[in-house]
């Protein structure tokens, strides 16, 4: 393999930049994963809300039918 000094220096610089970029991507990935986790928690909350709502509605229906 052959390369000039200049190339090597540039490559070193690129190397550093790429490492920074990889780190930024890693951070971004972590944030996205956290956001997904938060979304999943929200889905669970909404499911509980729906269940509670159905339960209350059911009770009210029984009450109205018995009226």
């Amino acid at each position, binding site marked *: 393999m052959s390369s000039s000094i200049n190339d*090597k220096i540039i490559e070193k610089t690129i190397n550093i930049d790429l490492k920074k970029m*990889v780190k930024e991507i890693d951070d971004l990935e972590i944030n996205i994963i956290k956001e*997904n986790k938060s979304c999943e928690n*929200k889905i669970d909350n909404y499911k509980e809300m729906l269940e509670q709502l159905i339960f*209350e509605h059911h009770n009210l229906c029984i009450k109205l039918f018995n009226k």
Partner: protein
Amino acid sequence: MLNTKPIKNNSNNNYTINNSLNSDKNIKIENSKQKELENLVLKTNIENFNESNKNDNYDSYKNNMMAEHFNSKINNDSINNNLIKSDTLLNPKIINEFNNSKLDNTNLNLGNIIEGNKYNSLRIEDDSDINNFKILDKPFKMDNNTNTNTNSNVKWDSNNNNYVIYNNNNIECVITNNDILKYILNDDYNNIFIKKYIFIITLNNTTNNNEFNFIDSIFTGNFDIMVKLQNFIYETLNNYNDLIESDKYNYYEIITFFYYQLIIWLFKNSSKFDNINDDNKVSKFFSVIIFRLNTIILKNLVNIKKKINDNNILLNKLTEIKDDINSKLNTINIKLNNFSLDSDNIFDSNKQSSETSKSSDTSESSDSSTFNNNITDNITGKETDINSSDIINKYKIVQKNGKKVDKIFDIITDDSNYDSDNNSYKEINDTITNQNFSNLDKIKLLENKINSIETTNNKISYNPNSADKNGKLFKINI
């Protein structure tokens, strides 16, 4: 509670006993057993009311009413009372309604007390037989506290779009929907009337989250007002997409959560609205709000699912990019490792040459060290394609006889047939990027064989950036 069979009224209401001894006296008596029974029923019902809810203002209202009627009957002030008929009071249906409604409505509060008159009217309207139960065309006396509460009311001002709470026919406060929304979104927002009449925000220690707790009041006990509030919250959620993006942060979820808690509270306190005459109205209302909340929740779920999918796609793309970058990094690292090996060779050979030249010429050794320094100083160098002719043109090198120098060997000799290959000299016309360190080694060998060339003002450099900084790489002695 007494279950009495209807007893026929005697058409003769009064008996007049004519006594020869007291002929001038007309003695009025109750119409015998019928009246006694009526009084007995009244007394019993009054006792039942007192036992079941002594502190209930609503019952107090009823008790006083019954007692007043009872007294009026006992005193026989007006047997033909136009306001209250005995049939009405004895009607088991009415008494049942009173007791049942009282028992059902365990959350009797100020709002219901105020709604008491309305309550009676609504119930009475159901049955024409008891129309006469609208007994009081004169104000009913109540204790001071209750009286104050009785005169409280809440109304929707459609002109100004706000809720107006009246106390003693005076406006106690005005609450706008925006006030409510502000308090929902910011518990630091201090509106004492919202806290007094609608809801408070408290911290749930188990979940460590804030919760909305509704308050029993004339506001929350008013069906129409709660419908208005519910409509406003729903419209806010429905039109939330029209808001500015920066305003959306977390607010949508808080409002949704409030809407959910409002609806759950309405369900749990649906008995508050039993006094609404139209059952269909209530059932329709609950059907609508459950539909609305379901719609909102499902819409949110779809959005969240979509967001998760988008995030997963983005994650995949990021992973691909990262893999690509890693492969490039590996390539570069391999190159750099090879470079370090090559550069070690260069430095070693350069060191050898400098040691050799040091013994013969001190100036040459200094130039060699300059070369070494230039290698390390080239960190900020730019990638540039350059060949020897460019360098010569740049530094305007001329031959000793005044001719323009086109190639390096022109500097060395005037012979046009000079063969540089035979002289261990190689013209470097390739770009720097195409050079390898073996070429540099050759130059250095040549450099060691020939005397250094003294260029007049300019120094030759294979790295133009380095040359700009240092002016020279080395000298070639002819």
